[in-house]
């Protein structure tokens, strides 16, 4: 600390930092990116291991025999579903009751803020059916959940079949210590949201649901099953939940352990773990897997029905059956045995899953990167902002000394509060408009333009977004001419604002924070009014949050090996925007308000600096 206390040495340090500011920033940026890319390199990562003692040492014996019968039940379910044209509530209630469960139903209804064109729904009405297997000699304090969605069309019938088959098998076992809730939810996430809100008696999204009649205490863990074929080649584990939350890593470990034991191919992000880390293709495979996870997590949306559980501190994951053209197939009995094993292990839990990591990235199902390893990558990027802020601070405080040396008493024109405050306020007002207007003005837009409601919302959002860039010289509205000091103060404020914003975001959702930092930090670092206007403006637009999303969409499709054309990509981009707004309205996803109310205004501040006069 002598370094800072000693004025001379402090001066020297600051001098060096200001002199070498640009090169240090460059180095930091490249180091950050390199660190991040290194995370997928296998020698740098840790192998997953089971931390939870209660699930580790004792292997259970799986005996689920009735896969074929479960599939038959699934077919029966499909027939009834077709007949009723929706959820066959009565049939499900009867079937579950016949299996000795306590069966309850929950009705719910939700009017979406605007029609969801992807899933073709607007006024949603549905019923969840769930049966509780009461554990013998247990006081209803803990529960596990197994859910399967009742999807439209021919999807997920096998999942419901296996769910019912497992219910029947589980019912005749004596060893359960936790109640097991078998839930068939209608309208996928909306039904799940209604059920979870009903279970916890909260209402965060203004949905109408009938109160639940039966409960099983605090839910310890949940699995959601999605299965649309009689045989599967592999099972895919989906972890990413609402707002980038992840379940405890032990849940993934548990899945992997049982896949290994039973001999089922298992994937995450649809990618098999590979052993050839030392080859380029092996490394790029790991990078792709990790990037997919980063992109999914950054999207802040639940990637399966499990995603909504995480808010309630319930560890949950989705297991999706994949039926590709590989020769080796796994039948329903094996899938049932896998689930049985997982539930028996979860049943052994004495405490909630808490031993392993909650913050991690997975370059493959067998490898993980913990928060301690990935945070430096973000830290290096955030450091750039702090260095720039320090530089600006020094610049702002140095002019007075220079004037005294000249012997001329020139009081530097301190920037008016108004010239700083005006851009801040106006950019935030634009953000508020971006947040509120699209949904509010959809009727108006539909009346005047030949578009549907959904298109109206998305196009309004894009219009406001682009319209916001017109407010580039707001500082002159009230304060007149901007000064040299003025933009520096504004930039100092903006840089610190961005640092705090990204720092907080990265703590909650690393992927989102990192992707935003990757694009916004260079922009924040180099923007001054003195750089070439046109070129910089183009760069700024390219690096703006909106276009970042567009690139992310293309990149995601590329990673998923389903590349899209420009036209398709644009359509996808529009639907992603509408989904983002819907996710916020339906499930409380925070990406849309974060982007509209904070990130976009922050970007507008830099836009203002670029056009400072």
């Amino acid at each position, binding site marked *: 600390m002598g370094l800072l206390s000693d004025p001379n040495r402090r001066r020297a340090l600051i001098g060096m930092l200001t002199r070498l500011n640009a090169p240090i920033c460059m180095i930091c940026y490249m180091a950050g990116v390199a660190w991040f890319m290194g995370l997928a390199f296998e020698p740098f990562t840790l192998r997953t291991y089971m931390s939870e003692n209660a699930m580790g040492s004792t292997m259970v014996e799986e005996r689920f025999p009735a896969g074929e019968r479960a599939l038959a039940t699934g077919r029966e379910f499909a027939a009834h579903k077709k007949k009723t044209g929706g959820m066959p509530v009565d049939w499900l209630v009867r079937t579950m009751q016949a299996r000795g469960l306590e069966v309850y139903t929950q009705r719910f209804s939700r009017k979406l803020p605007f029609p969801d064109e992807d899933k073709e729904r607007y006024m949603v009405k549905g019923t969840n059916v769930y049966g509780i297997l009461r554990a013998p000699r*247990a*006081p209803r304090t803990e529960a596990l959940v197994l859910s399967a969605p009742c999807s439209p069309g021919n999807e997920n019938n096998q999942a419901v079949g296996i769910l019912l088959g497992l219910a029947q098998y589980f019912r005749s076992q004596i060893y359960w210590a936790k109640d097991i809730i078998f839930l068939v939810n209608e309208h996928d996430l909306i039904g799940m949201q209604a059920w979870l809100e009903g279970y916890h008696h909260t209402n965060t999204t203004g949905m109408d649901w009938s109160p639940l009649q039966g409960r099983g*205490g605090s839910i310890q863990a949940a699995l959601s099953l999605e299965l649309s074929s009689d045989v599967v080649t592999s099972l895919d584990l989906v972890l990413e939940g609402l707002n980038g939350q992840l379940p405890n890593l032990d849940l993934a470990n548990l899945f992997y352990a049982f896949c290994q034991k039973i001999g089922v191919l298992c994937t995450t992000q649809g990618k098999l773990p590979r052993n050839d880390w030392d080859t380029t293709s092996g490394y790029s495979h790991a990078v792709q897997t990790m990037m997919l996870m980063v992109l999914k997590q950054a999207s802040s949306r639940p990637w399966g029905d499990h995603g909504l559980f995480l808010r309630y501190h319930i560890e949950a994951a989705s297991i999706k059956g994949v039926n590709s053209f590989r020769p080796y197939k796994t039948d329903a009995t094996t899938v049932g045995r896998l689930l049985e094993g997982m539930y028996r292990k979860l049943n052994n839990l004495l405490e909630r899953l808490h031993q392993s990591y909650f913050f991690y990235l997975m370059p493959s199902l067998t490898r993980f990167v913990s928060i301690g390893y990935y945070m430096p990558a973000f830290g290096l990027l955030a450091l750039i902002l702090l260095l720039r802020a320090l530089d600006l601070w020094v610049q702002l405080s140095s002019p007075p000394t220079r004037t005294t040396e000249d012997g001329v008493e020139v009081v530097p024109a301190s920037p008016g509060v108004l010239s700083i405050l005006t851009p801040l306020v106006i950019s935030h007002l634009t953000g508020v408009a971006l947040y509120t207007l699209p949904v509010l003005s959809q009727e108006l837009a539909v009346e005047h333009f030949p578009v549907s409601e959904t298109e109206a919302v998305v196009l309004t959002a894009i219009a406001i977004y682009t319209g916001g860039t017109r407010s580039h010289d707001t500082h002159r509205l009230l304060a007149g001419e901007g000064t040299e000091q003025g933009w520096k103060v504004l930039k100092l404020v903006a840089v610190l604002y961005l640092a705090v914003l990204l720092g907080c975001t990265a703590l909650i959702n690393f992927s989102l924070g990192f992707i935003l930092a990757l694009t916004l930090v260079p922009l924040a670092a180099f923007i001054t009014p003195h750089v070439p206007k046109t070129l910089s403006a183009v760069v700024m637009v390219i690096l703006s949050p909106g276009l970042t999303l567009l690139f992310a969409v293309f990149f995601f499709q590329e990673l998923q090996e389903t590349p899209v054309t420009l036209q398709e990509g644009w359509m996808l981009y529009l639907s992603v925007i509408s989904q983002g707004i819907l996710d916020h309205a339906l499930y409380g996803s925070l990406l849309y308000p974060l982007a509209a109310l904070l990130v976009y205004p922050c970007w507008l501040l830099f836009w203002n600096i670029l056009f400072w006069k």
Partner: protein
Amino acid sequence: MAARRCLGLWFFLITLCVVSTGADVLHTTPVTGTESSAAGTETVVARELPEAPSDPGEHTAAEPTREGEQNDRTRGGEQTLGQPTREEEQEQEKTREGEQTPAQPTREEEEEEEEQEQTRGEEEFTREEEEEELTREEEELTTEEEELTREEEEQTREEEELTTEEEELTTEEEELTREEEEQTREEEEEQQTTAQQEEQTKRWEATELEEEHVHDAAVPPLAGDPPAADPPSPPPSKDDFQEELVIRPLHSGDIYASFQFRTVWDADFMGDQKVSHYRLFPKSLGQVITKFSVRELHISFTQGYWRTMQWGQPYLPSPPGAELWVWFQDTVTDVDGTWKELTNVLSGIFCASLNFIDSTNTVQPSASFKPLGIGNVTDHSFLRYATLPREIVCTENLTPWKKLLPCGSKAGLSVLLKSEKLFHSTFHSQAVHVRPVCQDPQCRTTSMELRQTLNVVFDLHTSGQGKREWSLFKMFSRTLTEACPLASSSKVYVDVTDNPQGEQFELSPATPLLTQAVVLGDRRTYSVYDLTQQASFGSSRSLNMLLRWKNSHNNVVPPVMLRPLLHSERYVAGYGLQAGEIHTLIYNHHPYRAFPVLLLSAVPWYLRLYIHTLTVSSKGKDNRPSYIHYQPSKDRERPHLLEMLLQLPPNSVTEVTVEFERALLKWTEYTPDPNHGFYVGSSVISALVPSVVAMDTNSTLDRPLFSSFFPCKEEASYFMRVYTEPLLVNLPTPDFSMPYNVICLTCTVVAVGYGSLYNLLTRTFQVDEPSPGLAKRIANVIRRFRGVPLL
């Protein structure tokens, strides 16, 4: 004494009834009046009976619970299982005061008339015929002994019973008051069982008569009694032991077995003489009672939660985990200290963690728990109540419990109590209740009653393998071969209410003995096996009852959810680790009657209840509790206690919500498994529930019109206690797995970050003159002396 009791009674009346709505007061008060008069008459009648005083074991007629039960709830073999209620106590109090109005027609008389009316058609004709027939059969049997088949054995048993019954028939009507069983209709029906016997008689059991001569030591055993049932010669202070098992096939296909073992001892534990000679009464408990001046002790260990929606009401409710409540004698000065010692001693006796009961989980309910035995205590400072919802019950608790039985697990019904089967069940609950009861109708002296109960529910799907067929062997992997030789009565009851003509299931070996009882407001019929009769065991010398359902599609038909009149659920609402809300839902499924309930919830201090957020609403409207007793918690000292008297509107759900905040504990206060969560014990709902029998206003079909205009008061309501689920609440928990990392990180942050910042902010920087050297200083001193300017 009477005056004090009266005071207590009215205090109680005020808390329970008067504070509720006006209509209810109007309704309730006449009920008690009538009932008291009825009870009074009973007592008078009982006094006239010559046998009454000499029958201490079974017929403590003036014992309050008995009396209350006599009035209404549990007529028949089940009387020992009924819960005495406050109302009963009130009635009994009144009876003692002699407030009865003899002019009013009593309940018994009405009922008598009813029964007579009902059965007159048959009875008048059949009785004589039967007697003739029986004598005929007897003759046949004596002559043709070699042809005795199994059914005929049964017949003989019946005959024996019948003869005793005949003898007593004349006094029967008078004696009806002494036991509820006697109140049950005693009718003999003709039953056609097999082709061999043209007509075999199926009778209503005259339980009291048999029991009387079986186990009353003062009266010489009657000729028909097997010698095995004779108790050994009576000791100076009389004690008596009874055992019974009730088997109830449940709606869901599961089966419920309830054991009761009752030891009554005419010893005054609180008297001057020290009780030192123990016979049937367990010495370990007796000493505890004496040492800690315990008036009443109720302790239960339960593993599992009673599923009211599927199983209906239990005979004896208990919360998951351990529950202990004790009334101390008013001579105890340091109640808390005694309580602490008592819990530690009981912890040793029952091998349970009762020593974890301390002031943080002990409460003193003001209204919910009243003494069940005789007693005029109203000062709840002598009451302590505690639950341990986390307590796991297993064999180590069962063994000491079985050791308290006179026969241990060697003989009698207790041979069935094998832990490998008892813990292969859905619900297991064992309890010990000690309370003082009256010895005689005048209640001049008291006896100590020890009642050990064990309830177990076997699951259809896990134990029954989905097949609806139950037998004693299948349930307990044992059969019955003998009664406990020390027991004065040993019976097995099977609930056959839903099976009057054997259309639902088949019970084998068939027993001709039937008894009726009003249990939990519902009139139930039971088949009775008397183990003191050798004939019960048949030729195979072992009794293995078999319940076989007839229609095989029973497995296919899913069991429907019941709608019990009163049930409740409780849960924690909200998410996150800061705040939350406890919701308690109380359902009243009665179509038209409102009734009051007392809700008690004790919440640990680490959930800080915000009592201003307490809301009670029914049918969307605010429901003001007429009585609230709230004791706020003190951190680390005592829990919250909230007691409320609520009126439940008919056919409604009443929701009680209160918000709480989760406290951050000190790091040593966390349990070894903090992420499991912390338990909040069950809430207790005590209620007087309108009975199903009283609801049945259209039962004029089998009753004479003149008897059924006014709803029968005694059965108008019955006492019930419902326990809600315990709650598991997560508290904010530090990550204990990495204390080293945390300490290092925290220290580094404090030292580097905070230290340097503090340093920079508070220090003033000055350019320091280098201090002069030693030589210079000496030179300066010299210069100062010389008056020369300093260097």
